[in-house]
């Protein structure tokens, strides 16, 4: 999985979680919370969907790694690769 593909996976999850938002202009280097209306419950949703859809675990201490699309890609791509994806 490339980092770009990883970002798309995250965006797809966010599309389910925040269906009213326009995701087309989301900046990858800016915190997601600053661009979209996402609260802590929504982030838990992202974590849950990663778990359900992709079998990826994100421990609580690592939640901060999901702050932006870029940081998501940095953090998650290795995890995807480790699962052989």
């Amino acid at each position, binding site marked *: 999985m490339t980092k770009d593909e990883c970002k798309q996976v995250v965006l797809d999850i966010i599309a*389910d979680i925040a*269906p009213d938002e326009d995701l087309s202009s989301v900046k990858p280097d800016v915190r997601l919370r600053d661009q979209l209306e996402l609260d802590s*419950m929504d982030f838990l949703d992202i974590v849950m969907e990663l778990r359900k859809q992709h079998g990826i675990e994100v421990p609580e201490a690592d939640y901060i790694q999901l702050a932006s699309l870029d940081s998501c890609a940095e953090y998650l791509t290795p995890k995807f690769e480790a699962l052989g994806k």
Partner: protein
Amino acid sequence: MPLPSGFHDGLNGRELRGPAELCLGLGGIGVKGRGITGAARSGAAGHGLAGDFFNRRDDLQNGGRCAGAEVVEKGGAGSAELGEHGDVRSTQVVDMHVVAEASAIGRGIVITVDLKRRADAIGRIDREGNQVGLGIVMFTNGAIFGSAGRVEIAEGGEAEPVGVGKGLEDILHIELGLAVGIDRRLGHGFDQRHLFRDAVSGAGGREHELFDPRTDHAAQEVKGGGNVVEIILQRIGYALSDIGVGGKVHDEFDLLFAEDFADFLLVAEVGRVEGGVLGDRGPVSIDQVVEHDRFVAGGDQLTDTVTADVTGTSNNKNVHFESVVLLSTPDWLAISLLIVMKQTRIVITGVGLTAPNGNSLAEFRQNLLAGVAGIERMEIRYMGSQLAGVCHYDALKYQKKKEVRVGTRAGSISIYCAREALADSGVDFEAMAKDRVGIYIGCTEHGNVETENEIYNISKFDYDVKFWSHYHNPRTVANNPAGEASLNLGVTGPAYTIGAACAAGNMGLIHAAQMLRLGEVDFAICGGISESIHTFGIFAGFKSQNALATHEDPLKASRPFDTARNGIVISEGGALYTLERLEDAQARGARIYGEIGGYHVNSDASDYVLPNPTRQAECIRAALKNANLNPADIHIVNTHATATPLGDIQECEAIRAVFGEGCPDTSINNTKSYIGHCMGAAGALELAGNLPSFDDLTVHPTINVDNLDPKCDLPGLVLNQPRKVAKVDTILNNSFGMLGINSTLIVKRFVP
């Protein structure tokens, strides 16, 4: 010191019922050097209140204590402080913060000085030493909650509901701590009365007003003269016509006073009026006083005995005098009135609904009149295709997609109905004080949908609970529907649900009416909702009870009263109303759908699931009584009937018992034949379906009765076709639920 026997009989020996006793906290009303120490009494009656009522003359002269003032424990019945020097004191009647303060300036020097000193300390006396005759009278009744504030029931007192009606919901706007003093020096005869004092009502009543009646009386002149009671009533904003029980007002009472009395104390207690009949009366003749009361001077006879007839017709059935106690001195007349609840009228000003056959009142009503049902087939987890009443309102009208996703269906229905009701009511919601809005939503159950979904979800992950939703808890708490509505509306007042099985729809309105009457909120959004079709468990439960309907044609599946009925069709839906106190609705020119006429809720206490016709009939009768109506006065009875073979028969027994004879103007219908059983929304939706009958004078039928079950035959049953009628002034709405809860709500045509 023993009291005059008449007085005993009249007031003192008699146990004054009521949470706080009638209290004459007349303290230290000084007249000619005499003081009266009022001992307040409340709670446990029977002690010698008035034995302590009067100061000994010799004590007064000697500056001694008021022997009689019995100190009652504060927090018990209230506190009374010993009268010193005949001084009055703050006699706190009960923990109701109705303070009787009497400070009077007698003409005796000793008293004046003492009182003045004391009074200065509390800053309530004219420092010039002007004689200000004060009459302070209090009356309390712990069951009364003044709209100005709260009244706490005294410990040890009993919260006995007073007056007509039921208790809390009858308790309303009462002026507490009324003090009236009438200076008779300024006028002779009853046509010149001057009220010159207000008592402090700790429950938010007025402050003391001090004025010298010799100079200020003109400003305080009360219109109309007439009798004292009228004057007092005027003062506190009631008219004589507001007083009465069942149309017959309070009977006559005697005022006793003397022109030339040197000193005295006299109380004539009029007695309690109940049900329009005057209770015991205890006018005390001066003879008796003379005989028994040492500081009544001289043995003078009372010369003027006036009977004031306050009989009048009442246009408010729910107010009457609890009792009247009169205290008279040569200089003034004080009257204590225990005024009992005036029942605030509650009206419906808006409706928002979603039913399986309509998403607005207009659409719903149209389909009810046209016989158009709204049942369809739906795939239910583990159960395949089942009949269900499904709503098709636009959830995105008032919610974002995310809110619909995060929240529950019940929450979504609540938001839709609340918003629709608010729009319908025409109220300027933006400008409304949001902390004064209450949301009261009845529901049968809540949490089943979410829990079933989550268990199903984790079953796909080998029941590993790390896949359990973090939304589970806020989605399943029982108040979720009301909470989601409060979030959506920005309501910061109370928002919660009321669980009452299938009676919950009525309960929302009943509870809201109570909260409005208590003054908890000023505006209520209330009713009932259901998301029950999104569970499988409720379907399976009814199926296991053999109570789930089946039919080839969904529109014909719900068949109350029909011989071929075979059970319940489960539905979702919601109906929320805006409810307001009448005066508020009128102040903003609201359109009024109807008025809450009365209600009752009771329990069968007999079976887990089977209904009890005796208790149902009791509930209906009690609601009628609460509304002051007879069965023949009801024009539409909306039955609960869910189309179970037995339940319909049981309810018909109950209806027959109440309406079976002598009710030619009573039509009976049912709404579940159209929309199935909307569970928590049922009562609320079914009421809504009938409300337009006030305008179009048409009773919608119950449909799907091809063959009426003879055991469900009732006079007035409207089958299959709507019926035009001559009048619709009242709707009686029944909802009965499992575990034997019964509710009956009566809505009447609003007549100003």
